[in-house]
């Protein structure tokens, strides 16, 4: 028994030390990241730590690939625009970015691109990009510190930098560059419908954390007098308009008097596979058309 206690103590002390050192190292690398960037670490770093924009676009990869910032710039030549859409992120990511941006400069317009099931798929502390920035951004801290378990595990360096420490190190050595597309990333190629196979998953529940974050985005925008547009951009395949998360999303928008534009079963887009890169994402041509169409529909030719 004594042997076990001694060995366990040595193992725990060594592991805890390694965890602490990893946390310090991870924080140092995060602080050394270049300002601009478009990969899975440097883009969130810019969005959370540096972005200032009059027009801010929030959402997942669908926001990143669907809202062509060049078209926005043509329509609004003297304004700062940033597309903060990030692959595989949910409502808590959008909230953290919005909070961080407001601290630097209050946007005038925010586009929040939602997937119809966004309220049923909130990313937890474990699977969001946000946890990497937990030590350097207080807004991330406030968004992620929901439960006692989150608060405890996010103290761990291993947990915060799980799977990304190597990438952080490599990215921290990247040269400075300029983001000419302002966060937008166009996709090439068009959809081959002959190989198409899709089974629509059923989303039946709404996660209260996602709903809470969504409502907080709305109230933040109201508080800072930001015009918020909630948009569901086009899909190639038909979406279920009766799913609970979608119904709740539209209900909240209508109740809170927020503009809600739904293109998910839009006959113009879903009949043209040449506008899509895959079933979930428009290609460059599709993104240009969609951005024009959205601005036209919302009568956004000027503020």
């Amino acid at each position, binding site marked *: *028994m004594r*042997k*076990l206690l001694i*060995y366990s103590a*040595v*193992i725990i002390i*060594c*592991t805890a030390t*390694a*965890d602490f050192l*990893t946390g310090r190292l991870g924080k140092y690398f995060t602080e050394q990241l270049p300002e601009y960037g478009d990969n*899975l670490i440097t883009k969130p770093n810019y969005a959370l730590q540096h972005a200032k924009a009059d027009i801010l676009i929030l959402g997942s990869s669908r926001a990143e690939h669907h809202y062509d910032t060049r078209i926005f710039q043509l329509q609004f030549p003297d304004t700062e625009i940033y597309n903060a859409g990030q692959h595989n992120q949910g409502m808590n990511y959008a909230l953290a970015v919005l909070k961080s941006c407001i601290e630097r400069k209050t946007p005038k317009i925010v586009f929040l691109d939602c997937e119809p099931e966004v309220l049923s798929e909130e990313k*937890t502390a*474990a*699977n969001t990009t946000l946890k990497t920035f937990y030590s350097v951004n207080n807004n991330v801290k406030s968004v992620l510190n929901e439960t006692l378990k989150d608060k405890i595990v996010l103290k*761990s360096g*291993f*947990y915060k*930098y*799980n*799977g*990304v*420490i*190597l*990438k952080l190190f490599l990215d921290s050595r990247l040269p400075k560059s300029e983001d000419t597309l302002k966060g937008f990333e166009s996709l090439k190629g068009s959809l*081959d419908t002959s*190989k*198409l*196979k899709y089974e629509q998953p059923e989303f039946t529940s709404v996660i209260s954390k996602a709903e809470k974050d969504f409502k907080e985005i709305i109230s933040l925008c109201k508080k800072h007098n930001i015009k918020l547009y909630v948009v569901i951009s086009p899909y190639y395949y038909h979406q279920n308009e009766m799913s609970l998360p979608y119904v709740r999303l539209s209900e909240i928008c209508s109740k809170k008097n927020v503009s809600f534009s739904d293109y998910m079963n839009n006959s113009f887009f879903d009949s043209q596979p040449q506008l899509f890169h*895959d079933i979930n994402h428009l290609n460059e041509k599709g993104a240009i058309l969609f951005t024009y169409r959205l601005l036209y529909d919302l009568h956004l030719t000027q503020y």
Partner: protein
Amino acid sequence: MFLLAASYFFYMNWEPFYALLILTSTVITYVCGNLMEKYPDKKRILLVLCLLLNFSILFFFKYYHFVTDNIFALLSYCGIRVGFPQIKILLPVGISFYIFQAAGYSIDIYRKTIKAEKDFFTYALFVSFFPQLVAGPIERAKNLLPQFHSFHRFSYDNFSSGAKMMLWGYFLKLCVADRLAEYTDSVYNNMQMHSSFSLIVATIFFTFQIYGDFAGYSLIAKGCAKCLGYELMENFRRPYLSLNVKEFWKRWHISLSSWFQDYVYISLGGNRINFVRTLFNLLITFLISGLWHGASWNFVMWGLIHGVYLIIYNVIIKFCGSPAYKTKTSKAFGILITFVAVSFAWIFFRSDNMNDAIYAIKEIFAFKGELFTGSKTVMLLSVTSLCILIAKSLKDEFFPYGISLRFGTKKIAVSTKILDNPHPAVKICAFVLLTCYILLFGALDSHQFIYFQF
């Protein structure tokens, strides 16, 4: 009693209602087992009744939709319209494992290999012992039941060796299986977007993913039981270093393959009958094994392919004699051929249905397109973990105790044991490094164990 309560609590955490299924299966096999012993002249009918009731539970929860859908399709093809009641059934976790364990117990009593357990609570613990309840190993009563009768005092050696098993199990699951899953899922879930080479890499990765996933779980279960002082059977023994498919099945999911060998293959006559019938028995056994894995034709096909591999192997042995594997090259060739054959069969296992599997095979043999690399960091982590796994497997297979190094005329024996190294400093360092590696590079946010669905 405490372990029994803990086991039921563990299972009820997932779906409380389904604990009743384990209890039902336990009561049926317990009662039938004791009756078989009490009335030996009626034991055949009691066994049939016991198996029928047990497998009815399995059939309803696992195969109802598969069977009714196929009958419906067949009758519709013949122009007959018949409606089956549509019931929403949630597949109980681990149902195939505990039903098979309980069924094995009944057959053992019938064959008089063991005596029926008199204490109901001990028997209930045998069926529901939490480390191996949801994904095996499928234990044998003669191995596990006697252990429940003896008192287990805490022992450092048991705890230490159990902790090592669990740590390596977590490495296999989190660093190998779940990291590789990020690539295989992105390719197999969007096959139409990927090239032949991506599908080949994804298939090879899946071969290791399923090993890491299942062998990882088995080691965690075995390690957990070992910490408590119980010894579970070995479920995997470096299967991808098998020289042929027959050997593969002696090293892969040993508890299930030996179950099928003892209770299905041998019951059908095994190899005591003529050669053609033996081959037929093999095929039947593997078809059932495929169906055990999932209620879908792609699993049946997976079983069929392995059955055919074994038939081919047996025919070669019969007419050409056993391969000697005398040279290193012939051994390497045997390992490679087996690995390729097994990986090919995994395509059916990984695909969602037969159409997808056929599509994947067609795409693979088209040999065109560019290789999808995905996230370079994820790829690097996956390949690094895979290299560690392969290095350890080769070390365990070919240098299990140590190597001797020659310095001039001197020969020095060096231990290749890492987690079991006799030197405490090496052992502790290895333990800490592996723990840190798992926590820092393992996929902590993802996947359920693949075999939980069976």
